[in-house]
């Protein structure tokens, strides 16, 4: 079947250029928010990866548990505090919910160490055993969450920022343009989303400072290098490992609560669906390089969105590659923007070919990890 010939542009090249600009800005805004989410959710994984030297796959369920527990925290607050106008700012306060998620996920991290990972360490298990155990823990938690709360995304109401921050920082870029042929173009960047990006970057810089400039951070890195040597230097490595689990899991929970606030629904597989991009950010940025994680999150997010733009253009009817291939070869190759996630990993592979330790990682931090 032959397709219609491409329509002539209605209002000339200026309109097309404007639409492309809107398209780029629109995707740029989406990428910015996505990068912010990735940054926030990456810190905990990077901490475990660099201090305890294994890939913690149960990180996905930390995210999910963070989303659920922050929502759960909201329910408890609603039950405990009588809901009226004066208490609304506590009950529906994003930071209170996120702090609750910090504690709950932190406890989950500690339990993982006490019940599983601590025992494996005592038995001198290799990093592969830790990784496999983390996959197992993740599966158990995911299924438990599905059993208790149901496997279907739960509709929720979005929480609010405290102290009316949304009203104080009045940044709201919302632009919508509807074109009869080229469809609807829109940019949506609210102060809420911008604050989330700022929180993400502040969190990463804080952890980076903690890791590199404080006595506690030096003790964490020393424990990562050699537990025995750290112990004979007077470091209570058991305590350091506990703190590492609690902080790493807690920050992930905190981040998950904030990410949950940006989306309408959440379910027991939400964390799992974000796991691979999060791993990509850690590896691309470099193990232990928290600030590198910010850059790599932006690289992954923007390459993903650029891919979405290109794939969409390929799909478009007038002059689209998808149609040209069909005309030329007689079969269809789909250029759906849904394939954009793969592009981030292409970037990851390309970077790793030149810098196996990641953009900001050191060689010794990457060594002996699984």
């Amino acid at each position, binding site marked *: 079947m032959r397709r219609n010939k491409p329509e002539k542009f209605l209002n000339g090249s200026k309109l097309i250029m404007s639409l492309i600009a809107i398209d780029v800005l629109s995707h740029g805004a989406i990428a910015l928010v996505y990068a912010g989410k990735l940054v926030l959710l990456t810190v905990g994984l990077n901490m475990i990866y660099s201090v305890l030297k294994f890939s913690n796959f149960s990180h996905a369920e930390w995210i999910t548990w963070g989303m659920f527990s922050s929502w759960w925290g909201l329910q408890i607050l609603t039950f405990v505090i009588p809901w009226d106008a004066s208490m609304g700012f506590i009950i529906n306060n994003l930071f209170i919910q996120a702090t609750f998620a910090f504690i709950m996920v932190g406890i989950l991290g500690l339990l993982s160490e006490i019940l599983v990972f601590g025992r494996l360490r005592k038995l001198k298990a290799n990093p592969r055993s830790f990784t496999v155990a983390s996959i197992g823990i993740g599966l158990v938690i995911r299924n438990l969450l599905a059993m208790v709360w149901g496997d279907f995304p739960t509709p929720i109401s979005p929480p609010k920022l405290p102290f009316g921050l949304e009203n104080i920082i009045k940044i709201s870029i919302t632009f919508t343009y509807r074109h009869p042929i080229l469809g609807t173009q829109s940019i949506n960047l609210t102060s809420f989303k911008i604050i989330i990006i700022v929180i993400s970057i502040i969190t990463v810089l804080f952890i980076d400072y903690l890791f590199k400039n404080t006595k506690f951070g030096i003790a964490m890195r020393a424990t990562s290098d050699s537990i*025995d040597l750290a112990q*004979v230097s007077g470091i209570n490595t058991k305590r350091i490992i506990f703190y590492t689990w609690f902080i790493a899991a807690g920050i992930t929970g905190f981040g998950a609560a904030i990410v949950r606030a940006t989306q309408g629904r959440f379910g027991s597989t939400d964390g799992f669906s974000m796991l691979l991009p999060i791993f990509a950010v850690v590896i691309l940025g470099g193990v232990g390089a928290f600030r590198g994680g910010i850059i790599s999150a932006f690289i992954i997010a923007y390459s993903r969105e650029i891919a979405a733009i290109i794939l969409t253009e390929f799909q478009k009817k007038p002059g689209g590659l998808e149609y040209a291939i069909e005309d030329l070869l007689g079969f269809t190759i789909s250029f759906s923007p849904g394939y954009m996630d793969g592009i981030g990993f292409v970037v990851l592979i390309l970077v790793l070919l030149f810098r196996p330790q990641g953009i900001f990682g050191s060689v010794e931090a990457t060594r002996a990890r699984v």
Partner: protein
Amino acid sequence: MNKPVLRAQNIKSGYGKLQVINGIDLQVNEKELLTIIGPNGSGKSTLIKSLIGLVELFEGRVFIRDKEVSHLRPHEIIESGIPLGYVPQLANVFPSLTIEENLKIGLFTKKWDDYYQKRIKDMFDLFPILEERIKQKASLLSGGERQMLALARALMPNPEILILDEPTAALAPNLAEDMFQLIISLKKTIGISIILVEQRAKRSMELSDRGIVLVTGRIAAEGPSNELLEEDTIKKLYLGVREKK
């Protein structure tokens, strides 16, 4: 007579159910250099790790000065104020930390204030190369430089007893001799007690006050080094001295 700094009474230790050290009594006196030699797998490293809580003690007691440390974990020994320095055979520095951070870790239980500044200056006097590369990661150091850093870190808390596990391993002969001279100089100038585990048995025995020959987790011979050096059996089996044809 010099007072004992470290005493071990009938210690038995090992890993899990495997007993490696089978009842050893040991004493190190003030300003004494005690060398422990023995074939591979005889339990030398396990013995010194047992003294400082790195390996589980099944039986027996360990005292540093007059304080019992038998069931203390290594960090608890340091936290209780016992001045102890330890340089392991492998992984003797923290590679991802800078040289400065490695030295700071040596004084982890103390405040990093004026005393730290004084000690770090002392270490730079001993090992000038470390000052030149203070901001560099330890992973970038050569084998010999790593040993210097490991020794400097262990000396940071000004320990009364220094435990060295094969400090000359993986060093070229000239660097190994430099290390031996440094150990002797530390003993003389600082007056520190040293337990030295060595594979270069003859040379280390020549430099030490007393020696212990360890075989299958038991003491096979013990005494002043000069006497051990003269014993034919020890010469032949453990000091690498060959009989003349």
